[in-house]
């Protein structure tokens, strides 16, 4: 029987630490991912933190649950995992198709006659949570009317060109607003874990 050193068991590195140690991501990438995780953790219940989301993304990538396509940058790949984790959580909370809470009217295998019982309060709760988070994001760009306009346009599902046309701003103004937004988001992300 193989002997497993006890010390190794007690000092397990987190998936993020392993990724850093193996040079899968750089320190700058790690900070980028920290900010992205903070962003995606918005709207999720308070018991799911940004670090949970980040560790889960690393775990899925390293265990092989999610495979990185060739040519996709590691940061983009991990961000994609976090995005789908967020969507998965919302779907589950919303009682989506894979939900175990679905109840059939009869016990036959006729899915057309299946009905889902959902908690009507969950939609309201989600809407309130989302509204709160949109306000929090707007607070990040308070004092920057162009950035706020971009956020409003994005919320309505407008493209960059449509936003520029609506706001009547040049591409350079739009791009410098995006740069300011990136900086504000990075600042916010970097302060995670300081409290």
């Amino acid at each position, binding site marked *: 029987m193989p*002997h*497993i*050193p006890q*010390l*190794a068991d007690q*000092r397990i*590195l*987190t998936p*993020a*630490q392993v990724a*850093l*140690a193996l*040079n899968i991501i750089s*320190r*700058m990438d*790690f*900070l*980028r991912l920290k*900010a*992205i995780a903070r*962003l*995606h953790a*918005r*709207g999720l219940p308070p018991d799911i933190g*940004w*670090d949970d989301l*980040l*560790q889960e993304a690393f775990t899925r990538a390293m265990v092989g649950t999610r495979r990185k396509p060739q040519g996709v*940058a590691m*940061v*983009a790949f991990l961000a994609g995992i*976090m*995005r789908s984790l*967020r*969507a998965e959580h*919302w779907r589950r909370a919303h009682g989506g198709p894979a939900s175990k809470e679905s109840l059939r009217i009869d016990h036959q295998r006729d899915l057309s006659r299946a009905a889902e019982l959902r908690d009507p309060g969950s939609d309201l709760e*989600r*809407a*309130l949570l*989302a509204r709160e*988070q*949109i306000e929090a*994001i707007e607070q990040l760009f308070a004092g920057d009317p162009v950035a706020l306009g971009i956020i409003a346009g*994005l*919320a*309505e*599902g407008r493209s960059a060109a*449509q936003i520029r046309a609506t706001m009547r701003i040049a591409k350079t103004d739009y791009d410098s607003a995006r*740069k300011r*937004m*990136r*900086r504000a*988001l*990075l*600042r916010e*992300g*970097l302060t*995670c*874990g*300081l409290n």
Partner: protein
Amino acid sequence: MRTKLTLTTPAAALGRILDHLDRELIEASDEEVLEAARDLGMNPLMKGSAAFLGLQCFSFAEFFDSDVLKNLLLERSAAQKSAAAQKSAAAQKSAAAQLIRASNKQPNPRAKSTETRAQTAPCRSKKR
């Protein structure tokens, strides 16, 4: 004129905002990350920077310079030595067992022959 009707529930709106801002962060350059850190008085290039708080992390160099790795390597080498010692002890034991088995099956043929010769050899003096 917009041709597409989009559903704008707060959750859908938040989803769209997050997806877009996520892409903005992916595209952020190293310089932008450093600038944002500098705004907060952080230096991510420094060992133990506050920017990495929230998750204990190791850089590649730090990991290979750390006590964690040294201890792991020491443990592994001790484990390998002990496994090798166990293996060699087991090999010696099995060799000894084989030797015993072999000696039980085929005792020294010369010893037997000498004995046999001594028992069966005719006495020359009697013959005489």
